């Protein structure tokens, strides 16, 4: 992500040209609270009630216009099920600018689990990470076991953005990500990947080969 950021660095800002940044957003929460559904609703405006888990999508991207001239590309990382047995890799949290922690408003246990994910983020993620708490499944409000006030109160004490969403109807899903994107601070200077060391772009150096030859008998 650093290369995109440096590409849209401070020179652009000074000259008033539009900037475009890429931010990493990670999703967390208990299984079956609707993490993948929220992303699918947001990035593709689709909802599939019977979808079991995400296969084949490493992460989904969505461009958001922050204002008249500036845009943000959100790279949204799904847990790919690795949260189920508490087997998320440290790589997942690393360098995430923002996180969405999801619970199911009809499952009080998932709200408790969300609180422990937030503690995990505070331990593992970047200290300045922006976190949003999302109480999902407002379409099932008649079966609600976590009140909106309860969610909002916890979010307020922990300093989180808070939304109640429905991946099914789309309620508040866009608002959630847009508010999150707007709250991420923009780097004033291009972010160098590391002091003095040279980064190596392996994928770019090989794209020519890969295009010419689709199979690799390694």
């Amino acid at each position, binding site marked *: 992500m650093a290369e995109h950021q440096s590409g849209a660095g401070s020179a652009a800002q000074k000259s008033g040209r539009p900037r475009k940044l890429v931010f990493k957003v990670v999703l967390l929460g208990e299984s079956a609270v609707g993490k993948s559904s929220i992303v699918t609703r947001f990035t593709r405006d689709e909802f599939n009630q019977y979808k079991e888990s995400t*296969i084949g*999508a490493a992460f*989904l991207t969505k461009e958001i216009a922050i204002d008249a001239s500036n845009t943000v590309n959100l790279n949204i990382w799904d*847990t790919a099920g690795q949260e189920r047995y508490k087997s998320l*890799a440290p790589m997942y949290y690393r360098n995430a600018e923002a996180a969405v922690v999801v619970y199911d408003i009809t499952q009080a246990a998932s709200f408790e689990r969300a609180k422990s994910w937030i503690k995990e983020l505070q331990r593992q993620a970047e200290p300045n990470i922006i976190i949003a708490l999302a109480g999902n499944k407002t379409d099932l409000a008649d079966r609600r076991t976590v009140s909106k006030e309860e969610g909002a109160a916890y979010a307020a004490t922990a300093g989180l953005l808070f939304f109640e969403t429905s991946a099914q109807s789309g309620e508040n899903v866009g608002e959630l990500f847009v508010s999150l994107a707007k709250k991420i601070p923009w780097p004033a200077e291009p972010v160098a990947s*590391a002091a*003095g060391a040279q980064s190596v772009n392996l994928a770019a150096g090989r794209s020519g080969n*890969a295009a010419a030859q689709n*199979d690799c008998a*390694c």
Partner: protein
Amino acid sequence: MDEEYDVIILGTGLTECMLSGILAVEGKKVLHIDRNDFYGGECASLNLTQLYQRFRPGTTPPTELGRDRDYNIDLIPKFLMEGEGLVKVLVYTDVIRYLEFNAIATSMVLCQGSIYKVPSTAAEALSSSLVGLMQKPRARTFFNFLKNWNQDDPKTHEGLDLNRDSMAKVYAYFSLNEDTQEFIGHAMALHLDDKYKERPARETCDRVIMYANSAARAMEGKRDSPYIYPLYGLGDLPQAFARLSAVYAGTFMLNTPVDEIVCADDGSFAGVRSGDQVARAKIVIGDPSYFQDRVRKTGRVIRAICLLRSPIPSAKADSAQIILPQRQTGREHDIYITCLSEAQKICPKGCWIASVSTIAETTGDAKNEIAAALKLLGPIEQIFVSDSDVFEPLADGTKNSVFVSRSYDATSHFETVYEDVKDLYRRITGKDLVLQKRQPTA
């Protein structure tokens, strides 16, 4: 976990995670278990607490070392080169998108008590004092021979058969002396000892060509060494392949003890038991630590992780490799030093982590075997020495569907790991590994 899978994989080392990702992408239903609560097995990158737990159980890291999360210390030190097989797999599986690579600042070699920069190109080699004056034209002829070699054109072979003639014969043909041979065999082909000279020359020539290609790419990028390294440590490699596997529906269970490998009456694999749960599958893949009765010991590797407060005096850089060829230390095997720092995001500012590794030759104090390397490091604040057995499987697994990987060896690169992955894949599926280029999804 009480379910039926196609494959159960035990241990989250790089070999296991690569196979996990490759098989999941092919549509296999994978269950992947590790007894540890972290990824990477024997090739994990550890934080401070994990490092102290492993090497000094019952003690906690001194507070002056700083925050736990700022450390990602490799248990097994290795570097990558752009031209090597593992990098191809990273690109073809698109796993590369999870990783960020930096160049290693400098590559050096010990020669007659002094440390020299390893020339990164043939041209540089010919101007380096490592290759003697009289040897330069001969070395040039040898490098040109490799450059022009075309398997299908016998005119380029100069009467040599690389598949049959030994490397010693090739050296003799080009009249290359011991010093030049050492440079080619140890600093470029990265052989650990001199046994390669008696093996067919093909292996060494391929490695020199791979080195030269990687070095040429590094030159294009204005980098000083052909070595590259993933930010946050080598432990990110297995993590990235694990994510690929999970994205293709692989199930991951860390912190899960493996209590029994369940076999059918005919000895073939049936399942894995953890506590009172049994997961069933057609085959199992795992590292030697899960199959202690199905492996044999082939040797020992000594590794020392050293925390420094300043860079290695002879290599004042954010990162370095120093090779101590066996002849230079009076040993049979080379000693490798790697040094990394904050620039690779493996430790905080003001800290350098040097790793020393070699194949054990005596049963005495491990530190004595690497003394020649340790004295090059300058003041050492903390040192963690390991002396690990290296295992290989007793059987190839095709009879009972139990496929055991090899331990990580003392080489400074990933070619042997990649060879093991290809070999296991062939034994498991009966076909050669052919990687399909994945279309980027985003």
